Each structure stands twice: as structure tokens, then as C-alpha cells.
């Protein structure tokens, strides 16, 4: 095999790898957002049926987000005792994720991005 062919092969390989890495790093933040929305949505349904958020659900929810790699998690929701049947309440969740993304010069840098989830609910559980 000639040297020029080997060099050509490696240049092409490096270019393909570079494109692949850039694309994966563009997609990762959206994958995080999708997972964050899925988890938050499932807990929103639970909170709606329970008529508020108790400490166990809060802890479980927080742990799931921590396992996903989120930081500075804020979960704001009224507790079960505070919400009456049919009363409106809002579940607000925010978390910070840190990802390495390429900037416009295609240099990778760490970036913090805030994810938010907000849903209005009406309590469906008769508790008081």
C-alpha cells in the first residue's frame, strides 16, 4: 500500500470522526432535555393524582434528576396538606445541566444550560 493512500485514508477518517463528534455533541443537550421532560411529566401526573407533592415523591423525583446528571435542582410545588380538592396548583421544576458543546469556531467548551418544566394542575384527590 502506498504512503499517499494511507495519508488520504487517515485524513478522511479524521474528518469523519470530527463530524461525528460535533454532531453527537449537538444532540446530547436535546437528549438531556427530552429525558428531563419525560421524568418531569410522569411526576406531574403523579402529583396531580396525589393532590400535591409529599416529601417521598419530592426526594424520589430529585434523585432521578440527580442520576440524570442535573445540578441545582429546584422543585416548587404545594404539599398534599396545602392543596384542597379541585384547587389549582403549579408544579415548577428547574435544573442546571453541564455539557460540552462546540462554539462557532468549533472549539469545545463547557456550557451550563437551565432546563425548566412548568405545569398547571387541579388536585383530583379528596384529602380535606
Amino acid at each position, binding site marked *: 500500500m*502506498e504512503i*499517499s*493512500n494511507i*495519508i*488520504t485514508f487517515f*485524513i*478522511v477518517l479524521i*474528518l*469523519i470522526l470530527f*463530524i461525528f463528534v460535533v*454532531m453527537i455533541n*449537538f*444532540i446530547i443537550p*436535546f437528549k438531556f*432535555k*427530552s429525558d428531563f*421532560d419525560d421524568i418531569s*411529566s410522569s411526576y*406531574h401526573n403523579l402529583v396531580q393524582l396525589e393532590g400535591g407533592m409529599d416529601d417521598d415523591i419530592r426526594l424520589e423525583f430529585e434523585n432521578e434528576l440527580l442520576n440524570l446528571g442535573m445540578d441545582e435542582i429546584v422543585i416548587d410545588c404545594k404539599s398534599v396538606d396545602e392543596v384542597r380538592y*379541585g384547587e*389549582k396548583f*403549579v408544579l415548577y421544576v428547574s435544573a442546571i445541566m453541564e455539557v460540552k458543546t462546540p462554539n462557532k469556531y468549533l472549539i469545545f467548551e463547557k456550557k451550563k444550560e437551565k432546563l*425548566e418544566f*412548568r*405545569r*398547571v*394542575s*387541579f388536585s*383530583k384527590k379528596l384529602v380535606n
Partner: protein
Amino acid sequence: MNNKGNSSISAIILMMLIMLLIILPIVSMVFENYYISIITREVVDASYSAMTSSFDNINIGISTRNRLSYSFDIEENFLEFLKINLNLSKDFETSNQRFKELEIIEFTNLYLGEADEINGSVARRDTIHILMRIKFESMFLMLSSSEERIVNIHFDYEVPIDN
């Protein structure tokens, strides 16, 4: 040697052209569609949630006697809750640029007293039909002729009345 050198350079140029004109556009299109699907799913989830909350917020037991009167309440509630769920301004503008524009095209009650067939399925009870349009700014312009991508979201939601 000169011929071999020329053939290597032409091979590299050819590969780069293939990447620029074929691989990059395809990967970008896949990426753009993935992004649009995530945002669309978020809007659909927020809409269902807003719709469920809208029905919880009105007294359906009283309102069912006069169908037209509660349609208005549901639409008002739905829009209010959708704005909260998606963190939109009064004019449906987004604060974090997820999409360019969101508009409600249709919001109607499909059932008008008799069983009605709509698109192959029969509405036997009050069913709210919603058609929304989301406009995205096109990230990759080389393959698309327009500067924006439009996604239509349609769903029919049966009013949960126990009759």
C-alpha cells in the same frame, strides 16, 4: 510520483465534497428533525395537560345543558394554561427561542347533538378539536427552500362527562 500525488489530492477533495454536499446535509436534516420532534412533543404534552386542567376548572355538570356556553370557557382556560405550561407571553411569544411562533388555528366542538363521523371516527359526545401550528426557524437552509419549518399539531379531546 507527480501523478500519484495528484490522485491523492483529488481523492481528498472528492471525499471533502462528498462530506460537504451529502453527509453534512443528511446529518443536519436528521438533527433538525430530532430537535423539532422534541419541541413538538413538549408542546403536545403541555397542550394535553392544559386541556385536562381546563375541564377541571369548569363546572361541567351545569354547563352541559348549554354546550355553547362552556366551549368559550374551555378555550379561555386552555389558552391561559397553555401559556403558563409553555412559559409564553400574552401574545404567544417564547422567551427562550424554542420555536418562532405558535398559533391556534382551530378550536371547535365537533359534536353538535348527533353522532358525527369525522375522519373515519365517530364523535358521540362533546369532543374538542384543536389544530395548532408551530413555526420553527430553519437551521439548515441548503436543502429547504423556505426559511421556516411548519409543524401542524392536531388532536381531538373528548369532554370527560359521566352521562
